[in-house]
């Protein structure tokens, strides 16, 4: 089992009072809670902070934690002999393999045993003798990172989940599960999906938890994604802008002809209806071409001569309103 320094996580001393621990937790929760934080890795950081608080804010758990001794964070360690039988109240006996679970799960299990009155005889520590106690499985949240192409066509992803649940022997264990899910087309950045029954297994007839999936779409070299709409930079020449043109633009389904009207300006937004991402229901999003007029960087002598002629012939003053 890997050691985690809960005092360091909460940025408090080993002799911090209960009030100090609470204060530190509240300060850090506001900073790192994934619902309110924009900090990088907020979710992982908050998980440790919450674990640390759950352990250190509870007198008995804190005592049990302190008895683990001091180790470096991340260091592999085993609880000292007799530790489990002293603190786990029969949930896990000495010598039980703790390698598969982490420190947070261990302390969560201690809390659950106490909430259940503890002292349930092994191997059914979580269900006392003769009781018909059942528990729903844990919900699980995961993130699927898709390419824009995957989102457009729909895709299948394999999720490797590590779900803490309770084995048939009543002990806590880390279950590895591979779940293959079909992501229907129309999922977009920030979309949330749910799979009932694919979270942790329920115990003793309790229903399985649900799997919640958050969709992330990787940035695309060409298209920018907003909701179900796509944005594409479309450079055109000054001549195409003035005279109009029929040009080809890339879309998610190949190249499509687009009419540039005479007098098109930089920043104009040309909408190609229905060429964005499909929606699960209803009309698909749109593709917007953002026009930028690109001036020649190295005009030939002939171009320069023609532009000079154009300049002399120009009869519109674009700065008239600034006069």
């Amino acid at each position: 089992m890997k050691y985690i320094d809960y005092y360091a996580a909460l940025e408090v001393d080993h002799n911090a009072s209960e009030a100090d621990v609470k204060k530190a937790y509240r300060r850090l929760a506001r900073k790192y809670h994934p619902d309110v934080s924009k900090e990088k890795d907020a979710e992982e950081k908050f998980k440790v902070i919450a674990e640390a608080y759950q352990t250190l804010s509870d007198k008995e758990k804190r005592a049990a934690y302190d008895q683990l001794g001091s180790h470096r964070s991340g260091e592999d360690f085993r609880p000292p002999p007799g530790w489990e039988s002293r603190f786990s109240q029969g949930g896990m006996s000495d010598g039980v393999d703790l390698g598969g679970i982490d420190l947070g799960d261990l302390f969560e299990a201690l809390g659950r045993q106490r909430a259940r009155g503890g002292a349930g005889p092994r191997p059914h520590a979580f269900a006392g003798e003769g009781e018909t106690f059942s528990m729903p499985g844990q919900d699980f949240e995961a993130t699927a990172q898709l390419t824009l192409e995957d989102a457009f066509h729909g895709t299948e992803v394999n999720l490797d989940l590590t779900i803490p649940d309770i084995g048939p022997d009543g002990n806590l264990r880390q279950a590895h599960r591979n779940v293959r899910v079909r992501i229907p087309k129309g999922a977009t950045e920030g979309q949330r999906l749910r799979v009932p029954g694919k979270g942790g297994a329920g115990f003793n007839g309790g229903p399985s938890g649900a799997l919640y999936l958050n969709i992330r779409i990787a940035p695309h070299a060409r298209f920018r994604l907003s909701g179900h709409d796509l944005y594409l930079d479309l450079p055109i020449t000054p001549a195409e802008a003035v005279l109009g043109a029929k040009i080809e633009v890339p879309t998610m389904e190949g190249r499509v002809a687009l009419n540039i009207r005479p007098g098109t300006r930089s920043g104009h937004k040309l909408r190609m209806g229905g060429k964005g991402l499909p929606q699960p229901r209803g009309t698909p999003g749109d593709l917007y071409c953002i026009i930028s007029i690109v001036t020649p960087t190295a005009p030939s002598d002939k171009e320069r001569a023609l532009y000079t002629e154009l300049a002399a012939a120009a009869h519109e003053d674009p700065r008239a309103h600034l006069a």
Partner: protein
Amino acid sequence: MTDPVELHFLDDDTLVPFTDLLGASGLAMELLIQLVEHGIFEPAHPSERGLVPAQWRVSSHALFVARRASRLHVDFGLDAAGIALALSLMDRIDALERQLHELQCQLPRQPR
């Protein structure tokens, strides 16, 4: 290999029974009802307004809202009023961020 599992979108079009919020969030019915009183949840069909919340159907997006409410309750110790306030502010931030992102998408990138 087994067939892949089909996922359900959490959105405004898919409806779920209000009582699904209990299991999804772990919140007590009492707190969920208080959140209803703060305007956080409402029935998807206005015709169900006359019924008690336990008989409502709500948008499946409400599952996400209820889970977020639960995190605010457990992790920050907020009561219904605090949760409702935080949720409304988060909604506004989400809307503003979407708008900002949409506007940023319209700015041409510096070519090369």
